[in-house]
């Protein structure tokens, strides 16, 4: 019964008007903080666009398939060229070599050694 905390609570409840003012002041400060936080977030959004550095392990998994896919795409393209032009086997040979290059390019891009596929300012 003689709990000081409880007494305190009752006292505050009695002074209702100051409590309301306090609450509205707190709400206002919360509003300000929320708008500040969202403004900060909107500000930082354009900056956060360097691609694919979100997770190192995801990138590691990415590398494995990039190279194979480049060679496979070159092979398929070469096979189609041969099929359409009847130039077998030269289309396949040339396109496989080019596909190898594309695979290396993919790999280096995925690893971040060369610039990603978006080329800035053509000038």
């Amino acid at each position, binding site marked *: 019964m003689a709990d000081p905390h409880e007494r305190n609570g009752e006292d505050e409840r009695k002074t209702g008007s100051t409590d309301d003012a306090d609450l509205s002041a707190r709400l206002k400060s919360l509003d300000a903080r929320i708008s500040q936080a969202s403004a900060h977030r909107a500000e930082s959004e354009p900056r956060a666009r360097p691609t694919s550095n979100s997770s190192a392990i995801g990138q590691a998994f990415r590398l494995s398939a990039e190279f194979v*896919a480049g060679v496979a795409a070159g092979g398929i393209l070469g096979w189609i060229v041969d099929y359409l032009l009847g130039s077998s086997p030269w289309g396949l040979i040339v396109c496989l070599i080019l596909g190898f290059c594309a695979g290396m390019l993919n790999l280096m891009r995925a690893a971040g050694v060369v610039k990603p596929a978006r080329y800035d300012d053509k000038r």
Partner: protein
Amino acid sequence: MASPIEQFQIKPIIPVINFTNSSLFMIGAAAVIVGGLLYATRKRAVVPGRAQSVAEVLHDFVANTLVDATGKEGMKFFPLVFSLFMFVLTANLLGMIPGFFTVTSHIIVTFALAMLVIGTVVIYGFVKHGTHFLGLFVPSGVPGWLLPFIVVIELISFLSRPISLSLRLFANMLAGHIALKVFAGFVVALLGAGGALTILAPLPLLMAVALMALEFLVAALQAYVFTVLTCIYLNDALHPGH
């Protein structure tokens, strides 16, 4: 003993309309997603419950990934990216339940998903930027005599995107499920061998348990990687020249 690749067999359920076990699990995954999200958002409380928190976390996660990769204007692709992420994630995780079919372990399924992404990129790129979209294949600052080779290499590099996108998801799911089945098969084989070999049976069982944990990681991670790459490719469609 069952062969490790028997789990990937396509079996017709309703042969007349070519409804297979793969179709069944695709519909199952879609039903789980729709049902789960409808259940999670039925209250739309200001203070979210458990289910609603999960749905909100998933939404924010995909939205942040998309905005990080493409900027604010990329949010118009949010329905596509979120659907892809949820479908791949749910299909991968459904496949982890013993006896269930893994939809994403077939390259035709993952390739169809990848072609959906690349098709969106190409069509949107041409509609939005016209022939300027082809600037994607012509890098700046290359000497003239080298340009034809570079353009062809860039073209092949672009063509390899749907392949690498589908290959990675498919290969990870296929390899993981085969490894699980092989180690689980060792347990049965060692128990059946009798004598001293029976004592060794718990070892591959431990391995299978460890692999199971790894497979859950891979299932979630591959869904994430698929989503991130989708966002990066969409970024090319949105900003081809800069």
